[in-house]
């Protein structure tokens, strides 16, 4: 029987996340100690070998990302992406509230690997209480000497979803409009204030202490081979247990819903599940016997993304849901590039038209063309991913659209 496997959240609610001493009692800061005894190259190799891939959505190998950072510039930055803007996602908040010290330790480990003592945490604007807690946790860790020379500053977002995109996040820290930069150059080479910068997600950083303490091979042996480790998931929607879980990455989506989640609320039938946040694909019931790891999700045309799992029961109206999602993206587009600035708006218009019974087959045709161009030609991941809910529901739930046409 499928069960949770807690690594990051093993001591949840048993230790005070603000206290470095509490954390040390359960084995904390051993990973950093070990990291600092290694030379930076070997440390990066070790992280690469563990197979740890980014938990923020793109799934890039963390050690590999660090290895692109050039050695010579003196000023470099370690930035933690705690923007957590995907609706339905709150796993980074949980990780901070339960185990903040692991995040700080992970950032310091990265700092040693790339040769930086400058850390920033960019926190979602809706989490002021977590910012307070993090500041205390940093203060406590600094006082205890656990972080050594490594400094961490907390910055707050102002509610823009796009500021979770790493280069928009960097622009925002610099005090500019939250607009993504074109890449290359990637942040690893030219990031914060045009200096080499590693941007990783909260969960990615929080894995590092455990990798260093228990060894890369241990981590590589957990869960799915190509995306090892555990993943913290947050369940929302029509589900009996709308809460968070930490599972190994080869855990089946079916078990997330029916074992840990306790099944669809009220014993209703499942209509669809959206994994990875608002930009995720809608997965039909016939596809839920899939492990949640990055590659397995990609194979069914979905994405693990942030690890949000949004469950919809049989009574849900797909077209209405997509209409709401289209509104979300129209609101969150930064407005920089043509396909997304104009495209998200037209998507919303067409969805509204279909949803209110005024749509025609021509509108569906236009939606498909628009989706294709947005995916292929938008500047950043927002515009590229915004049409995915539309295309995935047109693929699996076309009849819901057709029945609403004029």
């Amino acid at each position, binding site marked *: 029987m499928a069960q949770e496997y807690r690594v990051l959240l093993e001591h949840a609610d048993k230790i005070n996340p603000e206290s470095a001493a509490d954390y040390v009692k359960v084995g904390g800061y051993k990973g950093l100690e070990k990291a600092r005894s290694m030379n930076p190259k070997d440390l990066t190799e070790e992280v690469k070998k563990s197979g740890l891939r980014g938990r923020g959505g793109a799934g890039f190998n963390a050690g590999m990302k660090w290895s692109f950072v050039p050695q010579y510039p003196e000023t470099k930055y370690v930035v933690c992406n705690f923007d957590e803007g995907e609706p339905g996602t709150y796993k980074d908040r949980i990780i901070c509230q339960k185990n903040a010290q692991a995040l700080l330790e992970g950032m310091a480990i990265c700092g040693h690997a790339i040769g930086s003592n400058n850390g920033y945490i960019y926190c979602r604007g809706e989490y002021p209480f977590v910012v307070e807690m993090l500041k205390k946790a940093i203060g406590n860790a600094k006082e205890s000497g656990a972080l050594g020379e490594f400094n961490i500053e907390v910055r707050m977002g102002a509610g823009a979803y796009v500021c979770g995109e790493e280069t928009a996040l960097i622009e925002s820290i610099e005090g500019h409009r939250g607009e993504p930069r*074109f890449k290359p150059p990637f942040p690893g080479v030219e990031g914060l204030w045009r200096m080499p910068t590693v941007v990783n997600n909260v969960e990615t950083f929080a894995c590092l202490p455990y990798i260093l303490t228990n060894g890369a091979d241990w981590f590589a042996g957990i869960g799915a081979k190509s995306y090892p480790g555990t993943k913290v998931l947050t369940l929302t929607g029509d589900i009996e247990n709308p809460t968070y879980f930490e599972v190994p990455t080869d855990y089946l989506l079916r078990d997330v819903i029916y074992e840990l989640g306790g099944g669809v609320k009220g014993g209703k039938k499942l209509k669809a599940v959206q994994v990875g946040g608002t930009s995720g694909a809608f997965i039909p019931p016939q596809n839920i016997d899939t492990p949640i790891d990055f590659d397995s999700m990609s194979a069914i045309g979905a994405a693990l993304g942030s690890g949000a799992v949004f469950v919809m029961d049989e009574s849900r109206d797909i077209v209405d849901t997509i209409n709401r999602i289209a509104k979300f993206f129209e609101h969150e587009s*930064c*407005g*920089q*590039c043509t396909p997304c600035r104009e495209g998200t708006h*037209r998507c919303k218009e067409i969805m509204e038209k279909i949803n209110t019974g005024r749509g025609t087959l021509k509108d569906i045709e236009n939606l498909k063309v628009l989706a294709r*161009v947005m*995916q*292929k030609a938008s500047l950043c991941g927002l515009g*590229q991913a915004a049409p995915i809910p539309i295309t995935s529901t047109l693929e699996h739930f076309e009849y819901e659209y057709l029945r609403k046409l004029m």
Partner: protein
Amino acid sequence: MDIKLTINGKEIEVPQGTMLLDACRKAGADIPTFCYDPDLKLAGSCRMCVVQPQGWRNLVASCVTPAQNGMVIDTESPDVVEARKVVLELMLTRHKLTCHTCEKDGDCNLQDYCYRYGVTESRFEGKIHNLFKDDSNPFIERDYDKCVMCTRCVRACEEITGARAINVMDRGYHAHIATAFDGELEDSPCVFCGQCIMVCPVGALTSKIAAGKGKPAQNEKVLTTCTYCGTGCTLELNVKNDEIVGVTSNRDAEWSPVNKGALCVKGRFGWDFVNSPERLTTPLIKENGEFRPASWDEALDLAAEKINGIKEKYGPDSLSMFSSARVTNEENYLAQKLMRAAIGSNNVDHCARL
């Protein structure tokens, strides 16, 4: 170090760091652009210049993507053409399409690219934004219902002029160009240089002074040097029926080496005096308290006679020369030479010192 790549079946070599846009153009491909401007920082945002690298999932914006060794590029693949058409249609959907009365008619990127890709109308429904800015300034018409949001004006204002009068306001579909607090140019740091007009690829920013006097694309262009100051900017007179009807920029460094098209408010907008009936066309000599027209010979003789008279009576130091920043360096040199060598005084000064 050079890298090799194939563009539309043609193999070419370019130096490392070359952007695909330049590589494609070198290979003879005509790449449409809106936001790209060789004199400004890159934006990579209009997505008109997309091309297809073989084997890549997405298209790339050629203006911001460095060429890589071994790349195989198609600049007019079906996906590329579809993307460009949709980008154009998305622009048209909210565009105040009034080419017949537009100052930019005939020299407009949107018009040209729609022609090239056969985009007569947009498949998407939509209305114009009503972003026309009723701005009382006498020089610049700001019709953002024709804006394609390329941000070239913003970058030109910051990077060429340094005024930072305008920027993007609001987000997403509501993003538009504005001064701080969405006010009028007069209340912003704007110096009315018109560099924003110069770089605008469409008819969103145009000259109020030249409006209605002839579409720039149809006017005869005569290159000349601005006479307002000694900088010597090249400007492009727009001539119609032997009359000056406007000034535009020639941005070619070979023809406009001093300013590469950039001008100031005087050069760009201060030319309408040329045809003024109040303009002096001959020297005037004052007799009995009244001015009367005279020939240049008569006027110069009179001046020489008076100068010599004063010099004889009071000595050369009783005379001084006050010269102007509106003449060239060479002319200023001659002026002081006249003063020192012919008249014999060191009393030479210049308006730029005031």
